[in-house]
């Protein structure tokens, strides 16, 4: 068993109105960043997990996303294996 750190990024699905992103977009524009074309707000979830292999860690994270961390109606997710802690 090794210790893995996973970063799970949950984002609003394309096409879904993201009022939070819109408000931030307006603020950035008014601060002078006129080139900002779009802003979407998602969230990142960091999970420390013990697993047999990087593949197993990733598979577990995918299942967590499907069952709890993301809502398939409104959100997409990405799983990134951030680091593998030094094997003890």
């Amino acid at each position, binding site marked *: 068993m090794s210790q893995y750190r996973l970063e799970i990024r949950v984002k609003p699905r394309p096409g879904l*109105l993201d009022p939070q992103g819109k408000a931030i977009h307006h603020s950035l524009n008014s601060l002078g960043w006129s080139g900002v074309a779009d802003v979407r707000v998602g969230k990142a979830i960091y999970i420390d997990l013990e697993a047999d292999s990087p593949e197993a860690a990733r598979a577990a994270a995918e299942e967590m996303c499907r069952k709890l961390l993301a*809502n398939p109606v*409104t959100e997409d997710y990405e799983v990134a294996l951030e680091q593998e802690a030094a094997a003890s």
Partner: protein
Amino acid sequence: MKVAVITFPGSNCDHDLYKAAQQVGGDASFVWHRERGLDGFDVVLLPGGFSYGDYLRPGAIARMSPIMEDVTAFANSGGPVLGICNGFQILCEAGLLPGALVRNSVLKFRSHDVRLRVERADTLFTSAYQAGQIIRVPIAHGDGNYEADEETLKALEAEGRVVFRYVDRNGEAVESANPNGSWHNIAGIVNEAGNVLGMMPHPERAMEDILGSTDGVGVFTSMMNSLSTAAA
């Protein structure tokens, strides 16, 4: 009518629901979310509030509560289930109703009375109303914007599963009457079988004149009547 009012950590409309059920002659009990079993109950009510502080997504954690397995079984066996506000969000997260409730398009928490058009008077929950009737009940939510994929939305309309819609004083579902950006001004929907209703507005807060409206009473008398008809 034996009524279960499920209480989650963070529910805050459970006492209103309890009282609403009693007002129409129901025999109400609180059921804590960690309890198991709904045997003997005729109706299950999921209250509004902020279960688990709306962490992750509204309703996402509550739907993992032990009692939700029993609520799902109860609903699947045809038992009437009504979820209001956070209860609606929990029903969507649990997959008992399609779609999801996301942040209000205005980014504001909306707390005021709205007008609803009762789209159908032939459901377990609306038989005390007339189809097309306009009722006035309060809303109080930050995440009431109903969203679903296009296929689901089409099916909801085609199958007449939109039960309540936000409307203006003329009964028109115009954009200015939509408090949260919900698709087609949807305020409440039923599942395919018609025994599970989710709605964002609070009929349980419109039960007495002193509360400003009694238009919510019909939801509870409808359930009462449908059950006594079924029993007769």
